[in-house]
């Protein structure tokens, strides 16, 4: 089968490529609510990358902060100001 080291790096490369797609969709999107959801998806992919890079302390800070707290506060800001980005 595939040797262990190559499998480890292969999963890291797949997760990083998905995060590039999520970042591009977040910057291009005009609906700000969808942009926040894409940015939360990118943060989830980064959290898996931190686990594969053997850094569990960073993972335990990053998951509540970047997937839960920051999108929550951003959604409150969007609901009080504007939702659509004009051209």
């Amino acid at each position, binding site marked *: 089968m595939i040797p262990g080291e190559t499998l480890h790096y292969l999963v890291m490369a797949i997760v990083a490529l998905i995060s590039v797609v999520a970042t591009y969709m977040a910057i291009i999107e005009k609906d700000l609510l969808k942009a926040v959801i894409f940015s939360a998806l990118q943060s989830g992919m980064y959290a898996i990358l931190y686990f594969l890079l053997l850094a569990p302390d960073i993972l335990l*800070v990053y998951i509540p902060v970047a997937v839960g707290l920051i999108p929550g506060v951003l959604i409150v800001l969007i609901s009080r100001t504007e939702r659509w980005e004009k051209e």
Partner: protein
Amino acid sequence: MRIVEIAVIILIVLAFGLLITVAFSYIAPGTLIRPLGEFYLYATYNPYDPIVRLFTAMSPESVTAIVWDFRGLDTLFETSVFYLAIIGALALTRGLMPAPKGEEGQGLSVIVKSVTKITVPMILAVGASVGLHGHLTPGGGFQGGSVIAVIPMLMIVIFSVLFLAKRMNITGFLILRSIGLAIIGFTGVALFIAGLVQGVPAWVFQNMPKPGAPLSMPVEVHGALISGTLWFFNLAEMIAVASGFSIAFLILLLVKEVEFRG
């Protein structure tokens, strides 16, 4: 303008390509790590080696030992930066926050409310376990505090803002945060004051005995490892971070809409 944007992007990508080619042997990971990192790994729990035992931190978790013992002053200043951000946000909204009065909102349905009443103590238990075992397993003060800070956000969304603000106002959370910061400050100078009282030289932020300063915080309590100041720092940082985040949410959600006069 399209051409200028595209030209800027291409220039940035070319510059980063040059950077990767020049720095590849430094950025790409190898099988050896830096000598300073290897020293921290060797010295994090080492009462055996005759020279390294003077510099050890007596905690098997090297990241927590670096954050609170080897580089403790960096963490002190980072705590003060976080504190300044919260105080700045409070000063911006001064005079705009009315007292929490009036009837509470309706919130979500009964099913969600009863499930939340079960899961909130579980979140509290997980956060406390992650935070207080920071010197033995991955975790520590920031991690436990961030997990506990999810609770006020859940309660604000599922019940209502006034439900939380009537029971525990911003002043209550500020008092909790100040208690946490005071415990950090006191633990930092505890050994220094003990050294002054006994007439023995001692450093500020000292954890284990160093050459020339023979005082030490307790390493074990009835056979369980607590690694001196690390346990107290983790406990205080957990309280301070959780209440700091709660203040941040409550400020953003309690500011009232005032018409723009002008």
